[in-house]
């Protein structure tokens, strides 16, 4: 009996460490974001405590970035929360994809793994679940990935906050431009298909036309119209393809 338990513990530890190890390359990708987030948070007017707490309990990089940008622009709390919702909606895709693997686990496991679910951990864990060995501890692998992602993010955010508070009057140094060019760097990789070009251009035009709307509502309106425009082009493309196929 005790031998079986010992063997199980070893297996669990192995899964945990493998999950951590396989996430390592992605930690390198996350660290500049953490650093920049911390630096920007200082100049946005968010307190250091709030910026750290946001990393610790929200733990969602891109929405934290956008939240800091909106705080700096003086947007009301309600709009920032709605924007966070919209930006993080993609995580629902991830939990939908993990559902078949996790549905038989206890609620506590689901809560823990859901809290730590990020783009990176999803990518790594999905690879593990796809392998068809019958290890019962693949969720521990996901936990390993989650924990290193979390610690890495907290560390670099704190480092960024220290860095940001060492630079006096960060906004006069143009740290707000750092945010803009970072956002550009995050957007460019998406712009590869016609529907995406359409979505981005439409969102750009609408955002400029709606700056007069109160509570930064223009942001939500522009994003919604942009998404609709992109989906319309995507729909037209597939209708077009159908049409050509029928003619052949």
């Amino acid at each position, binding site marked *: 009996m005790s031998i079986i338990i010992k063997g199980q513990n070893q297996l669990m530890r192995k899964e945990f460490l493998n999950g951590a190890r396989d996430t390592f390359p992605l930690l390198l990708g996350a660290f500049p974001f953490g650093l920049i987030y911390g630096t920007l948070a200082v100049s946005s007017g*968010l*307190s250091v*405590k*709030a910026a750290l707490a946001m990393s610790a309990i*929200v*733990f*969602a990089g891109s*929405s934290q970035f*956008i939240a800091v940008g*909106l*705080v700096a622009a003086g947007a009301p*709390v309600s709009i*920032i*929360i709605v924007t*966070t*919702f919209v930006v*993080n*909606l*993609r*995580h*629902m*895709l991830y*939990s*939908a994809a993990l*559902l*078949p693997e*996790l549905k038989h686990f206890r*609620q506590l496991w*689901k*809560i823990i*793994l*859901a809290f730590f679910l990020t783009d990176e951990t999803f990518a790594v864990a999905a690879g593990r679940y796809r392998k068809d060995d019958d290890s019962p501890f693949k969720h521990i692998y996901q936990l390993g990935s989650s924990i290193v992602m979390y610690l890495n993010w907290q560390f670099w955010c704190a480092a960024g906050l220290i860095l940001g508070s060492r630079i006096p009057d960060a906004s006069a140094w*143009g740290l707000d*431009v*750092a945010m*803009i*060019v*970072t956002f*550009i*760097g995050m*957007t*460019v*990789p*998406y*712009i590869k298909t016609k529907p995406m070009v359409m*979505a*981005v251009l439409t*969102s*750009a035009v609408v*955002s*400029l036309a709606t*700056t007069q709307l109160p509570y930064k509502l*223009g*942001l939500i309106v*522009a*994003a919604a119209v*942009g*998404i609709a425009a*992109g*989906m319309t082009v995507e729909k037209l493309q597939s209708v077009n393809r159908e049409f050509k196929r029928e003619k052949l």
Partner: protein
Amino acid sequence: MSSFAEIVLILGMMAVTFSIRYVLLAFSGRFSLPDSVEKALRYVPPAVLTAIIFPAVLMPGGEWNLTLNNAYLPAAAGAIIAGFLFPKRVLAASITTGLIVFAIFKVFIR
């Protein structure tokens, strides 16, 4: 931002983010996302980011400014071009180029 507003902000952000990540697992497969929603979600990040970038660059401080006094303009243009030129290192290329162009314009043109 007052510390009360900060607490509301962070708790609110946590509530929506955690709910999104957890809701499907909580109800374990009793419903799934419609296809159109899955498609729409892929457009969310670029659409939201663009809606932040454009007004910040073209209308800094809430007023249109398309002159060379507006250093955000060349910085953003540089960041976009560099991003497309270095598809494997988009983030690094955009940030460095954007910051360098911004600094040059601030120093030499103002």
